[in-house]
């Protein structure tokens, strides 16, 4: 994995953790508008980074399209324990 890909993965992990943490916070704080606003903004940022990563390197999620039409990217790209 290149340094650039590793940096993008780290950013995805950071944003993903913010979402994981805010999600369960909001589950017990249903009307905290500031937290909802932060969740939504972070979700947008995650979505954009996810799309950028998947198109540039390989599918992040099972339902991302294969970048190659001749080779199934999901079945030929690393799993996270081999990054």
């Amino acid at each position, binding site marked *: 994995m290149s340094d650039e890909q590793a940096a993008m*993965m780290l950013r995805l992990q950071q944003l993903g*953790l913010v979402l994981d*943490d805010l*999600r369960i*916070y909001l589950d017990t704080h249903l009307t905290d508008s500031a937290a909802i606003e932060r969740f939504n903004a972070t979700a947008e940022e995650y979505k954009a980074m996810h799309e950028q990563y998947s198109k540039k390197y390989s*599918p*992040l*999620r099972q339902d991302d399209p294969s970048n190659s039409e001749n080779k199934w990217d999901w079945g030929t790209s690393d799993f*996270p324990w081999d990054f």
Partner: protein
Amino acid sequence: MWVYEKKLQYPVKVDMNKPNPRLAKQLISQYGGPDGELAASLRYLTQRWTMPTKNTQAVVTDIGTEEMAHLEIIGTLVYKLMKNATKEQIVAAGYDAFVDHGKAVFYVDAVGNPWTAAYIQAKDDPIADLTEDMAAEQKARATYNHLLDLTDDPGVADALRFLREREIVHFQRFGEALVQVQENYACKKVFSSNAQNAQY
């Protein structure tokens, strides 16, 4: 329905040139042991149907899902510590799970007991379940403390500190959910311990 992402929730940095079967054998308890991540995930996820409110269902769904990500982190730690282990290192560490599982990551505790559903509970009673869940988070936190006492591998310790922190956060959320369920009962003037009969 769940969707998989090729991404660990937290980065795992372990030097694979320094295999450590002894530490792997200890860490495996948080994979398949009594207070491990498999037990955590399966406990919360099977309590979903009988949680009384939308948001308590969300709490057990979301924490149960996060525990799956933690299971993957522990599995990755074990895999990386075992991948390049030699026969001599495996014998010296007493990693006897090798007999039945080779270097596969399997659901056992630190002394080899297989995972069992007897580790977990779902009572169709939100007070009992959320109290069980809070205790489970504290037991997992204590186990991470014990593991941190036993390791001097900086990469492993970093991941363990992250996982320990998440147990504390989950404990907090389950506690909030418990208070909300109790307040809901109080509003309905239901003071019975037979909580599952209360109508929401």
